[in-house]
């Protein structure tokens, strides 16, 4: 009996242990699943393109917005056209009016400083002009008719000379609506030059832009021997030394990858084509003389593998 009890207890404990182990793995999983999958963090930086390009300060041309003439006319119809015309036309008449008015009002100022008088007279005239406005209307209208004939004639002549341009002009303006400062304006009356302030560093190595400019010049002159057997397996590296004006001082063959089985003649033909390309591209343009120490020497790695596909 005792033995049976002992065995029973033994088997019971054994069974409980196994059950506990199974429950344990059921809850917590197998050991390898304990490893946390580490998240891979990819770091990147956001840089302004000027930091990469390393372009020298350039003068930018700023387009001045052109007022829509049609829209302007619409606005003019709303405002007093006479006043605007006064602003334009009264100016030539200011002098005679000034002469009449000055001695009546500011005799003392005229003696001391004529310039100050003119300035002060102008200031005083402005409010007075508004008061005087209604009187010389007829005169102004007559004068307008006389004055505007001449510029109008000139304008008409110009318009007659370029009828097509004016047609295009009106079509373009009408498409822009009546907004005087429409976003569609693309014609520039004046070009304002403005220097851009970039992060230009003379001591940085050649930027991607600069390298692409040089690369393009070489590629335009490289005539590789396409169709030659196994040309895609050949590589040629040249070391070039440039003068300050970009002209070629020396070119040296640094490395030539000519795999086994490729004919020596094909290799030599590619080497020659590379040297000729470099010589024909000389002098290399778009190189900043200030950074001569940076671009004085560099390598060209000629890779025809993409050409033969």
């Amino acid at each position, binding site marked *: 009996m005792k033995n049976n009890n002992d065995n029973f207890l033994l088997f019971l404990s054994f069974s409980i242990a196994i059950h506990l182990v199974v429950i344990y793995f059921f809850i917590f999983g197998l050991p390898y699943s304990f490893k946390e999958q580490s998240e891979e963090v990819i770091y990147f930086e956001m840089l302004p393109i000027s930091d990469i390009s390393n372009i020298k300060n350039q003068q930018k041309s700023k387009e001045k917005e052109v007022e829509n003439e049609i829209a302007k006319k619409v606005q003019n119809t709303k405002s007093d056209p006479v006043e605007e015309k006064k602003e334009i036309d009264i100016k030539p008449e200011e002098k005679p009016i000034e002469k009449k008015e000055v001695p009546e009002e500011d005799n003392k100022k005229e003696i001391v400083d004529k310039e100050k008088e003119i300035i002060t007279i102008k200031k005083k005239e402005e409010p007075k002009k508004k008061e005087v406005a209604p009187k010389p209307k007829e005169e102004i209208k007559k004068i307008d008719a006389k004055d505007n004939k001449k510029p109008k004639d000139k304008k008409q002549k110009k318009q007659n000379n370029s009828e097509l341009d004016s047609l295009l002009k009106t079509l373009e303006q009408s498409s822009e609506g009546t907004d005087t400062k429409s976003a569609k304006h693309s014609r520039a009356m004046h070009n304002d030059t403005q220097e851009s302030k970039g992060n230009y560093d003379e001591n940085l190595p050649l930027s991607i832009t600069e390298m692409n400019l040089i690369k393009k010049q070489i590629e335009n002159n*490289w005539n590789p021997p396409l169709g030659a057997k196994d040309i895609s397996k050949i590589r040629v590296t040249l070391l070039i030394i440039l003068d300050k004006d970009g002209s070629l001082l020396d070119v040296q063959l640094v490395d030539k990858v000519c795999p086994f089985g490729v004919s020596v*003649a094909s290799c030599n033909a590619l080497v020659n084509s590379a040297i*000729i390309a470099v010589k024909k591209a000389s002098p290399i343009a778009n190189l900043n003389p200030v950074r001569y120490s940076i671009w004085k020497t560099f390598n060209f790695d000629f890779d025809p593998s993409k050409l033969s596909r």
Partner: protein
Amino acid sequence: MHRLICLLLILTYNLNIYGIQTIIIDRGQVNPIPIAINYCDADSSESTIIGNDIIKVISNDLKSSGLFRPISSSAFIERKTGIEHKPLFAAWRQINADILINTTITKLPSGKIKISFKLWDTILEKDLIGEFFEIPHNLWRRVAHKIADKIYEKITGEKGYFDTKIVYVSESGSYFKRLKRIAMMDHDGANHRYLTDDKYLVLTPRFSPHSDKILYLSYVKKTPRVYIRDIKTGRESVLGDFPGMSFAPHFSYDGNKAIMSVAKDGSTHIVEIDLRTKKTVKLTNGYSINTSPSYSPDGKKIVFNSDRSGSRQLYIMNSDGSNVQRISFGGGVYTAPSWSPRGDYIAFTKMTRSEGFTIGVMRASLDENNSERIIASGYLVEGPCWAQNGRVVMFAKGYPPVGKQSGKSRIYTIDLTGYNEQEIPTPKDASDPEWSRSLD
């Protein structure tokens, strides 16, 4: 420890340590090289005439390759001629001549003429090659082709193909009564002559490696049989005593064997024959049609077309007929394979519903991605063959019939890259061309 440091230093040594940047150049231009062929310096009026003819042939050869662009002589600035003087390179660069050829002809006391040439690179300002030939007068044309070959090889790195012959089938007559003869000419169409008459239908002429014999198919006894013919003597004989039809012959690259198709009891098989012992070996089995065999340059493999998979496709097998592997998998029908003498490409004729007849090339290696490339197309293009440098493909191009007249058929060459398709002038219609190797 010291050794380790030295090793590390050596391993890390490179130009970048000194801050030299590297720019990768992986694009270029596909433009013919401008070349100036200067007037010949001759010692007599007779030599001058020969010299001018030589220059003309050289110019035509180089221009026909599509890789060179001869500059008109009216643009030349320097007036000095001959090989003795050093050219004024700036003057030649001024007219954009990258390459300059100077020649000199002198008459020898023996009656022969001595033709010397020198090839200059005006950019590098150095001479690339200079050679001379002493020949009888009547061989001036071959010398001109050889000079063109030398120039071509020096600039491109590839062997030239100008001093070669072409054998082809000359066609004439109406659509229902077509007359065919085997003809031979220089690669530029000169020295044309017929090898057979037009009594019997002839097809697929093929040169031997030394260009002294040809194999061709003839219907002499109303049964198509392969014949071997000595070009010089004109003697010919039937090759192989086969019960059925034999056709599509090809020489091996060493000239000791020939391979052809033999048709019997509804199936066609490839048979190899030893030209010395006349012993034959059947290389294919089964009930399919296997034809148009072509040896690889090393003679170890054979490419052929077969319909064993249901449609005509291209297969490669060992020269003993074992290890047959299919190499074409595109849609359409593949025929007339021709193995490049360089061993890297196989040219073929392909027919599809969408594109019709095309000439294509594919890599001969089974390891690489075997993508094919179409290089020519037309109403009827077929029968590609290679120049000996494996760079240029020749094929026949047929045009649609006009009314009751059969469409014309001409021979064309095209570069492996698909550029520069050129017609080879023939007096009449032409088909089934074959290119010889360089003549000795």
